[in-house]
C-alpha cells in the first residue's frame, strides 16, 4: 500500500498512536522486568546500610529478617531488631515529621535501655544549602542526638534552642531541625510505650 496515501487517513493516526503506545508500554514492561530484581537488591542494600549506620553496637543476626511491626501514631512502624546471642541489644526504626517542604524521614537506632545510638535522615526535600545540614555529609548536627535519652535532656528540652531546648537550629532554617528533633522525640516515646514488645522480652530467643 502507498504510505503517503495512508498517512492522511484518520485510521492511520489511530494506528500510529496505538502502535507507539503499545511499543513504549512494551519497552517499559521489559525494562521493569529486567531491572526489578536489581533495584530491589540495591534498595535492600541501601536499607541495610542505613540500618547499620545507626547501629554502633555489635550484633550477630540478619537485621532485615528480624522485624516486628507495631502500630504507631499514624501508621504501622516496622522495627528492625539487632540481637547478640539471641538477646535484643538494639532496635532500629523509621520516624518522620513534617519539615519545611514535606516529610523528613529519619532512621533511628536505640539500644535496649532507650539511649540514642544514632540518627540519620534518609529522605527529605528541605532547602539545599539551608535545611540540608541535617545530612551527615553536610554537617555534624545529626550527631548531636547520640547518647541522649528521654529525660536527659528533660522532655521539655527536647526542642531546638529557639524553642527553649538544647538542640541547635541552623541560620535560616529552624523548621527543618525542629522537625527532626520532634520525630526523634516521638521515636523515643514510641520505644517507651512498646518496650516489652520491641525488646522481645515475652518471646525469648527465636
Amino acid at each position: 500500500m502507498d504510505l503517503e496515501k495512508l498517512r492522511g487517513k484518520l485510521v492511520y493516526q489511530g494506528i500510529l498512536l496505538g502502535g507507539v503506545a503499545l511499543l513504549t508500554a512494551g519497552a517499559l514492561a521489559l525494562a521493569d522486568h529486567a531491572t526489578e530484581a536489581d533495584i530491589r537488591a540495591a534498595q535492600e542494600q541501601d536499607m541495610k546500610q542505613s540500618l547499620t549506620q545507626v547501629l554502633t553496637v555489635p550484633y550477630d543476626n540478619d537485621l532485615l529478617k528480624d522485624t516486628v511491626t507495631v502500630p504507631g501514631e499514624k501508621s504501622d512502624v516496622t522495627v528492625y531488631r539487632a540481637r547478640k546471642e539471641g538477646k535484643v541489644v538494639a532496635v532500629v526504626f523509621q520516624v518522620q515529621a513534617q519539615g519545611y517542604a514535606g516529610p523528613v524521614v529519619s532512621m533511628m537506632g536505640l539500644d535496649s535501655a532507650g539511649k540514642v545510638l544514632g540518627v540519620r535522615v534518609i529522605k527529605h526535600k528541605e532547602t539545599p544549602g539551608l535545611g540540608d545540614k541535617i545530612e551527615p555529609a553536610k554537617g555534624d548536627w545529626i550527631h548531636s542526638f547520640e547518647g541522649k535519652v528521654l529525660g536527659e535532656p528533660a522532655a521539655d528540652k527536647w526542642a531546638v534552642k529557639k524553642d527553649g531546648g538544647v538542640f541547635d537550629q541552623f541560620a535560616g532554617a529552624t523548621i527543618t531541625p525542629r522537625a527532626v528533633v520532634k520525630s526523634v522525640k516521638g521515636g523515643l516515646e514510641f520505644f517507651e510505650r512498646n518496650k516489652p514488645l520491641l525488646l522481645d522480652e515475652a518471646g525469648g530467643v527465636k
Partner: protein
Amino acid sequence: MSGNYGRITRDGLWDNNIVFAQILGMCPTMAVTSSATNGLGMGLATTAVLLASNALVSSVRHLITPDVRIPVYIVLIATLVTLVDVSLNAWAHDLYKVLGLYIALIVANCAVLGRAEAFAQKAGVGEAAMDGLMMGLGFTLALTLIGGIREVIGAGTLFANAHLLLGSSFAFLETTVIPEYKGYLLMILPPGGFLVLGFLLAGKRVLDARRAARAAAVAIPEAAAN
C-alpha cells in the same frame, strides 16, 4: 556537511542556547542551580535524554503525521526518561542516589520537546543527534555557570560535594572560594536564580550587540572600498 555541524554546535552552545537564548527549561534551571554540582548533574542527565530523544524522533519522522506528532513525541520522551531512570536505579545505584531527583524532572523540561519539534523532526539522524548533544552541552554549561555563581555568592564554595556526583577522583574540584563566609541566603533561594539568570541574559545581549556592531564596523569600510 561539516559547515552544517559547525552551525549546530554554535547554535547549541551559544547562539540558540536553551537557557540564554530560547529561555526554555526554566523549571529545572531554577530548581536545581543552587550549586554548581547540581547544575552539572542536571545538565549531563538532560544531555543524555536530549541526544536519545532527538535521534529517536528523527529516525521515526517519516512515519509520524503532523496531526498526532505532539502526543507521540511526549510518549517517546517520557519513555526514554523512565528507561534512563530505571536502568540507573538498577545498575548505577550510587549515581542514581545523586541524580535520581533530576531525572524525573527532565520530563518537565520543554526544551526536549522543543528540540524534537524545532529540529529533529526535520533533520537526519546524525544531525539530530548532534543537535541534541550540543543543545544538551549548552544547557549543561548554562546550568553549571548559574549554579557556580549562585554557590560562590551564596555559600562561598564552588563544586561542593562534586565527589558525590563524579566520584572521589573529582574531589579536587571542590573549592572554598571565600573562607569563613557566612553565606548570602538570597542567592541560594529561588530569587537568586532569577537574579543571576537576569544578569547573565543581559550580559549575553551586551556581548552579542558589541559583536554585531564590530561586524558592521568592519563591513562598512569594505563596502566603501568597493
